[in-house]
């Protein structure tokens, strides 16, 4: 009786219910898998915020929790960018912090006291579960096959391209932004399909949320108008498109303008002009459609061409005029660097100095997406076959995102969703065909042969795929690929993307794990041993961490809004002490922090970033700092005996190697990062004194000396303290200087 009882469950209305239930269970499992695969770092290390930017987000969230929403909105942060301060409330995307704040308060309301740190750590995995669900919804809109959505959700849940930005502790804007991106696109497709104001308004709502969460909202702002524009060009204008687009544009723009950081950008910035242009265009097209109903064809053609020419001329002229007069902001540097990968290196070294802004290496695509990357073109091709409005969207998205992902490593993140959609479409098509397809009846075969309109290759009856053998081979190989994919994703996540980078792990020769915790050691030293408002100068990479972990004011941080101020720090680091000291005094610097990996072989240290400091400083003071001076005559970047005088006298070099030689037998000091032997003598520091050096010498802190009490040079004062006798100027050169009162 087993088959019949199974029939009861699988067929008819109860069959639909069963499948629905199964789908829900599968989706829940996928979401759980997505969450749990992101927990490697919590299990291996601890519940800790990762990397750099998340530390700022975490600090901002704590401020929000402590002071409430309105003071967060008006927050003037006087502990960063000393002495300029930062209007933080108006220069951040508050979506992330507000989201975790709301979650925190809801949990409190339910009398579940959870530490805000744990909410922040777990936010990204939690939202990745939601992303998987949103992915299911989006893909289900593209395909009739129920398996496509589930496959896409599963891909999205574990693909490393997305995991790289959403492991537990990676508390960054992208943590919630990718969910919002996918969900906004789902709502947009829904709106275009139904032509409903409600779906359009929902799209605008989630678009507004997205704007509040991530600067990458510009991608949506340009993709949706492009979709509409392409539809119009294809002659697919319909009231559905008109209703959904106008609703989205009007409400979405108003919504986005509510974010203080965005403000009037949507109507003044070139990046947003395409949305405005398409909005105008669609009005004209709608008007033309309306007129067409009342005019005979010939007159209408004339009217249309003249109208098109006129509006194009007017619009283009107006845009040029407004751009020249400065009403519309010119394209930003970050935008240019999207088209010309060499642009940033020449004009904005600060953008180029960030590793995630570098062009993507080819293996990265396979590393992050595995077999999805070769299913992706197939999926796009299948969209061309159907080519309904929503498939046009997939095609456009794929083309744009592929290009951007090639330009910048970090934009791999925007490519990942569409790769999952396309790959799921392709794979579900294969699976459906090979699992479900039954041998066609002779009737349909006959029909197929008589149909002259179809391609010649399809005229012959297709029989090959109906055999049991071909089915099993295909299904087995697909299963194998899927299993390999899971193994690859787990391996990549565990090995590449689960390191907090605040705590470093290495293996000892006997295989046991060795934790290098120098950063936190140094930050806590600062926190416990310095006055509350001691100003710390460091290269901008560590600004957010110092603010978050040491709770001390910093000169520059990872919010690189002021290039000049960063260049000032670069100049102080790359100049001689005599030049640096006045800069340090002027900026009230109490401590200087450098990261030095020479003892341990930690390659991400400041001396390896030093050339960027020099380049950025050179951008502002080309006469005082010159990159060439830091290379030897043969063009080598050296730190050993043959280093150039500019290199040896720079503050960064001196701070890195101060006293380093004393660790080794005389003349044997080795730098393990640059693999060179160092000079015998340790460099002499006069204006700074060593305050703290962490266990593995990764973080070194120096205290800036006060002016000498007796008004001497620091070099003279240090020489006097060492007991050296000062040489008396016996012979005056030139005319004697008389003292006047």
């Amino acid at each position, binding site marked *: 009786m087993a088959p019949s009882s199974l029939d009861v469950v699988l067929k008819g209305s109860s069959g639909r219910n069963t499948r629905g239930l199964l789908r829900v269970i599968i989706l829940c499992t996928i979401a759980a898998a997505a969450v749990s695969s992101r927990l490697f770092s919590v299990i291996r290390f601890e519940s800790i915020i990762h990397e750099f930017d998340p530390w700022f987000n975490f600090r901002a969230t704590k401020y929000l929790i402590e002071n409430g929403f*309105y003071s967060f*909105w*008006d927050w*003037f942060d*006087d502990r960063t960018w*000393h*002495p*300029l*301060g930062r*209007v933080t409330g*108006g220069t951040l995307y508050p979506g992330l912090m507000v989201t975790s704040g709301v979650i925190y308060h809801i949990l409190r309301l339910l009398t579940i006291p959870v530490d805000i740190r744990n909410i922040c750590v777990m936010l990204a995995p939690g939202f990745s579960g939601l992303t998987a669900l949103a992915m299911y919804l989006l893909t289900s809109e593209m395909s009739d096959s129920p398996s496509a959505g589930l496959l896409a959700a599963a891909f999205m849940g574990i693909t490393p391209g997305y995991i790289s930005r959403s492991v537990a502790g990676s508390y960054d804007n992208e943590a919630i932004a990718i969910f919002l991106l996918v969900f906004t696109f789902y709502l947009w497709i829904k709106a275009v399909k139904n032509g409903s104001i409600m779906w359009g308004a929902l799209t605008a709502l989630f678009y507004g949320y997205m704007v509040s969460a991530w600067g990458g909202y510009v991608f949506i702002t340009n993709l949706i108008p492009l979709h509409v524009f392409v539809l119009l060009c294809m002659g697919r204008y319909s009231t559905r498109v008109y209703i959904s687009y106008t609703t989205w544009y009007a409400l979405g723009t108003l919504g986005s303008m509510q974010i*203080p950081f965005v403000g009037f950008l949507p109507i003044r910035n070139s990046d947003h002009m395409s949305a405005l242009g398409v909005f105008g265009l669609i009005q004209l097209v709608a008007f033309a459609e309306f007129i067409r109903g009342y005019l005979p064809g010939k007159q209408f053609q004339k009217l249309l061409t003249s109208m098109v020419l006129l509006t194009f001329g007017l619009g283009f002229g107006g845009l040029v005029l407004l751009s020249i007069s400065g009403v519309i902001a010119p394209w930003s540097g970050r935008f240019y660097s999207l088209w010309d990968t060499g642009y940033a290196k020449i004009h904005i070294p600060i953008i180029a100095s960030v590793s995630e802004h570098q062009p993507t290496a080819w293996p990265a695509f396979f590393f992050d997406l595995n077999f999805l990357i070769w299913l992706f073109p197939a999926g796009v091709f299948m969209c061309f076959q159907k080519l309904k409005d929503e498939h046009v969207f997939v095609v456009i998205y794929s083309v744009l995102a592929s290009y951007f992902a090639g330009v910048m490593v970090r934009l791999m993140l925007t490519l990942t969703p569409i790769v999952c959609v396309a790959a799921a479409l392709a794979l579900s098509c294969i699976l459906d065909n090979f699992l479900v397809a039954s041998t066609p009846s002779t009737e349909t075969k006959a029909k197929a042969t008589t149909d002259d309109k179809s391609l010649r290759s399809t005229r012959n009856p297709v029989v090959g795929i109906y055999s049991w053998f071909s089915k099993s081979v295909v299904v087995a190989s697909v299963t194998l690929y899927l299993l390999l994919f899971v193994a690859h994703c787990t391996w990549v996540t565990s090995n590449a993307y689960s390191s907090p980078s605040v705590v470093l792990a290495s293996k000892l020769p006997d295989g046991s794990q060795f934790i290098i915790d120098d950063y936190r050691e140094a930050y806590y030293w600062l926190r416990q041993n310095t006055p509350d*408002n001691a100003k710390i100068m460091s290269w901008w990479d560590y600004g957010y961490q110092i603010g978050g972990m040491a709770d001390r*004011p910093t000169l520059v941080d990872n919010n690189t809004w002021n290039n000049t101020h960063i260049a000032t720090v670069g100049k102080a680091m790359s100049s001689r002490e005599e030049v640096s000291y006045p800069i340090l005094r*002027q*900026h009230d610097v109490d401590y200087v922090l450098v990261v030095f990996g020479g003892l341990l072989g930690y390659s991400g240290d400041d001396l390896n970033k030093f050339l960027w400091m020099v380049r950025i400083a050179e951008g502002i003071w080309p006469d005082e700092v010159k990159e060439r001076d830091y290379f030897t005559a043969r063009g080598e970047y050296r730190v050993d005996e043959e280093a150039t005088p500019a290199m040896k006298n720079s503050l960064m070099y001196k701070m890195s190697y101060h006293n380093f030689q004393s660790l080794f037998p005389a003349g044997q000091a080795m730098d393990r990062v640059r693999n060179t032997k160092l000079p015998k003598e340790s460099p002499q520091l006069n204006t700074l004194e060593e305050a703290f050096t962490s266990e593995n010498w990764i973080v070194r802190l120096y205290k800036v000396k006060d*002016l*000498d*009490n*007796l*008004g*001497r040079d620091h070099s*003279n004062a240090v020489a*006097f*303290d060492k*007991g050296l*006798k*000062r040489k*008396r100027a*016996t012979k005056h050169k030139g005319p*004697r*200087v*008389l*003292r006047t*009162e």
Partner: protein
Amino acid sequence: MRWCLALLICCFLAAVNALSSSGSRLLAILEDTEQKDLYSTLWADLEARGYDVSIESSKSEQLALFKLGERAYDHLLIFPPKSKGLGPSLTPKHIVDFMNKDGNILLALSGKSATSSAISSLLLELDIHLSNDRSQVVVDHFNYDTLSAAEKHDVLVLQRPGPLRSDVKAFFDGEGVLALPRVAPQTLGDSALLSPILKAPATAYSYNPKEGTPAPEDILATGSQLNIISAMQARNSARFTVLGSVESLEDKWFSASVKTPSGKKTPTVNREFAKQLTAWAFKETGVLKVDKVEHRLITEGAELNPSIYRIKNETIYSIEISEYVYDKWVPFELPGDDALQLEFTMLSPFHRLNLEPVERTDSSTVFSTQFVTPDQHGIFSFRVNYKRPFLTAIEEKLEVTNRHFAHDEYPRSWAITGGWVWIAGLWSVIGGFLAFVVVWLYSAPVADKLKKTQ
């Protein structure tokens, strides 16, 4: 802030114990303690003013400037040694450390014999220079004492010095003449911490009596470039005074009478001048103290010393300063055409304003000014940096944050008359749309009825 408080408490404690504002323990270093009787009037005068004088030989074994890392004495009076140095416990390093810990030093030199090299190198650290052979004497053929130095002309007879400049207070002026026998001259470097107390007259020059007339290129300085008494105030206001003629402190010269070539016989005022000089050197005069610094919004009942202001806030700043004169704190008065200035700075001053005296208490003057915070947000500081010759330094720095306008601090839209056009436009569109909707909803379709009747 805590440091200031500690200093204040120190000052108060000191005021209770002694006359000097910074303690009463005075150590006099004499190489040969036998000679102390030569200066008996000086000791008596100092002890009468409340000093706790201990006289030690520089060769003494127990001599130590520091005890358990703290200063053992507050002031140091060093007489010129004949030997090469001052002994192992008074190396230049010890003396510099003593100054770094707020100790005051009065160093006497003598032109009678060569100055020791240790003292010369110590003075070099302070940018005070002696001649190369360290054994020169100042002579003046117009202002010498005809009674005691008719031949050698090396006992200078000079008026007491007036104010250094018109904007500097005079601490050493008065009637009468000084007799300064056998002065070892000093020249000063460019340092702003140095100031001359008594310069040689324009007609004076210096030479080495054992060598005769020097070659022109060996002459270090002449005339008023030579200093007889010079002073140095370190950045922590520790004082270092160099007196060129140790003999002028002797009892003999306290009560002597002198006669210049052109004048008549007059008694010297060396004793009064010694009081002025030691009083200044040991911080009985010219000591300034900041009692209180206040800043607040100008509105009534505003919070005192807030840590944050907004741009374009009207603020008021006041600072209360007293000056120590011999035995009490009195209200500080600015000399002549000097001004006490307040800077409101971020990297560079946005305001630099004169502080006006607005109120006087028994022991202090309140200087105050008000201004509007600049239209630039950032971390600013109220800074008073008052450093003048012979006055201890005032360096007050208070950090405050200048924030931007909060979202609800801008004027509302209806309060801006220029915005009325836009507001009218806005509401007319809304009203027009509502009217349109109403008309649309309630106008009955006429055409249908016509059809029906037909």
